[in-house]
């Protein structure tokens, strides 16, 4: 039965169902409600877990790292500046191939200060070597979180579940929580194979010289690439349990016959779908919901793009001075196709800018009659507010 739950509360309860043994977190908007929820469950005795309320995100990631190598299922959550403060530890966790799960309640980065939703934070650590899964809905966030633990533990890689801050975390809606039995059946008790144990005292985090470092990185890359299978498998196995799936690596929605495609990450998808469905006069689009950004599913993406003339990559972040972040990667992926679509790249909804229903039309209008792809634009920016030189 669906429960009326705020996204954060639902995530807190989901995480509790995954039985993490150590949770470490530092408060930051909009992640706060998640860890507050977990803290309350621990305080109420509903979750047997060491809740470590650390003094910084750097330590949050570090505590999670320590807990994982000491053999516990570990979890943390953060957002925005917190992700950046964690950054060096995030790279380290992944490079050491330590399985743990974190939620990123996606939020813009300073400066200037902005506390609202975009995805610049998780994009900033896309190269950390983590698996990154983006959630379009709170239900997906719940289901992806459960799957994330299995993926992390089977692949021996950390997984970051990216959930749009506020837009998802602070929205109350009817949500299905899995039962404890369902989660326990899906997530058996786990102990990291390469952890620290006095009975088998290995050394982690060694100094690797140039003659071996490329191989270490190669192995890490391969592990991430292999993880695609596990991501798909986890989703289908979980679907067999709860009857819902999240789309595996990516999901094609909308009009499968459309020649226009729109690729999105995260929660904007529903608004675009509604906008298209509400107005039959608008051109139809095929939506590609990119769920697994890391590993980047190039092959699945090419299959999803088959038959498209035009593909809009809509992002919630950018690489200033270059343009989009995901766009160029998509462009690179589709080049291998026989008839690749023209790829247009936009950012929108930065820093919590409301993504209204008319976004769909703006996107379509911007590309439909354009022979040449749009290099990159922040489509909902109003340059008239800027001095001449900055327009």
């Amino acid at each position, binding site marked *: 039965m669906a*429960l*009326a739950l705020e996204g954060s509360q639902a995530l807190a309860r989901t995480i509790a169902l995954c039985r993490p043994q150590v949770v470490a977190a530092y408060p930051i908007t909009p992640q706060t409600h998640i860890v507050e929820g977990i803290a309350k469950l621990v305080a109420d005795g509903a979750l047997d877990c060491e809740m470590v309320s650390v003094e910084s995100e750097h330590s949050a990631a570090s505590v999670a790292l320590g807990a994982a190598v000491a053999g516990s299922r570990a979890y943390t959550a953060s957002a925005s500046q917190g992700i950046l403060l964690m950054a060096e530890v995030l790279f380290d966790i992944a490079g050491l191939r330590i399985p743990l799960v974190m939620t990123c309640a996606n939020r813009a980065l300073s400066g200037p200060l902005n506390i609202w939703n975009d995805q610049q934070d998780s994009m900033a650590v896309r190269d950390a070597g983590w698996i990154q899964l983006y959630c379009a809905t709170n239900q997906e966030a719940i289901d992806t979180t459960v799957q994330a633990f299995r993926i992390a533990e089977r692949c021996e890689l950390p997984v970051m579940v990216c959930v749009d801050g506020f837009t998802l975390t*602070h929205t109350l*809606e009817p949500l299905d929580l899995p039962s404890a039995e369902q989660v326990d059946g899906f997530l058996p008790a786990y102990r990291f194979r390469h952890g620290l144990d006095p009975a088998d005292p290995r050394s982690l985090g060694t100094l690797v010289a140039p003659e071996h470092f490329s191989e270490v990185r190669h192995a890490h890359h391969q592990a991430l690439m292999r993880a695609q299978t596990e991501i798909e498998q986890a989703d289908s196995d979980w679907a067999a349990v709860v009857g819902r799936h999240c789309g595996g690596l990516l999901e094609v929605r909308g009009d499968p016959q459309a020649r226009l495609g729109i690729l999105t990450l995260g*929660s904007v*998808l529903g*608004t675009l779908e*509604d906008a298209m469905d509400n107005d039959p006069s608008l051109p139809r689009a095929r939506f590609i919901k990119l769920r697994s950004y890391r590993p980047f599913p190039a092959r699945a993406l090419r299959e999803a793009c088959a038959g498209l003339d035009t593909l809009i990559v809509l992002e919630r972040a950018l690489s200033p001075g270059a343009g989009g972040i995901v766009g160029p990667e998509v462009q690179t992926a589709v080049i291998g196709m026989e008839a690749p679509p023209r790829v247009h790249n936009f950012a929108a909804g930065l820093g919590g800018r409301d993504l209204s229903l008319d976004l769909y039309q703006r996107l379509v209008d911007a590309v439909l009659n354009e022979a040449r792809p749009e290099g990159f634009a922040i489509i909902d920016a109003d340059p008239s507010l800027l001095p001449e030189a900055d327009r």
Partner: protein
Amino acid sequence: MLEIRIHGRGGQGNVVAAYLLAAAAIDGGRYAQAFPAFGAERRGAPVAAFVRIDEQPIRRRCQVREPSFLIVQDPALMDVAGTLAGLRSHGTILVDGAETVIDDSGDNEIITMPATRLAMEHIGRPVPNTALLAAFITLTELMPLSALVDALAERFKGPVLEKNRKLVEAAAATIEAGRWREVAHGVGA
């Protein structure tokens, strides 16, 4: 899809009101969505929250720009820019005030009710949200009042819940049941 915007001040339980209303709708078997207009405001500042209610799953996550209903927790906010923005032509406004007054002089009917006073009487705190929600549900008959009580039961227990239940009943009694039923069902369907 029924879209409602709730205005209040930071600390008045504005978001809670939105969550309660959506939760009551979900309890009543509908789909619903509630979220705040996220801000950095602190206690006392004007804030808004949004509620959508539908028979279908709700996909959009944009803010409510053209609500059918406004619930305003402080009459002074009626004069604040933006409070009335986008209200649909037949939309109505429920606002806290000194006593129950129905103003149908304009395009949009405004019903004032003594939500804060009732809250003071029953729970001893000047928080108008529960009384306003009870009145709103009574006016629109979107769901039985018991759904609101059920939603309150998720947050309160024991004597506090009981006082809230009495507040709900008292607030409902001040208002004409079903007065906005057509607006609600006409737009919502």
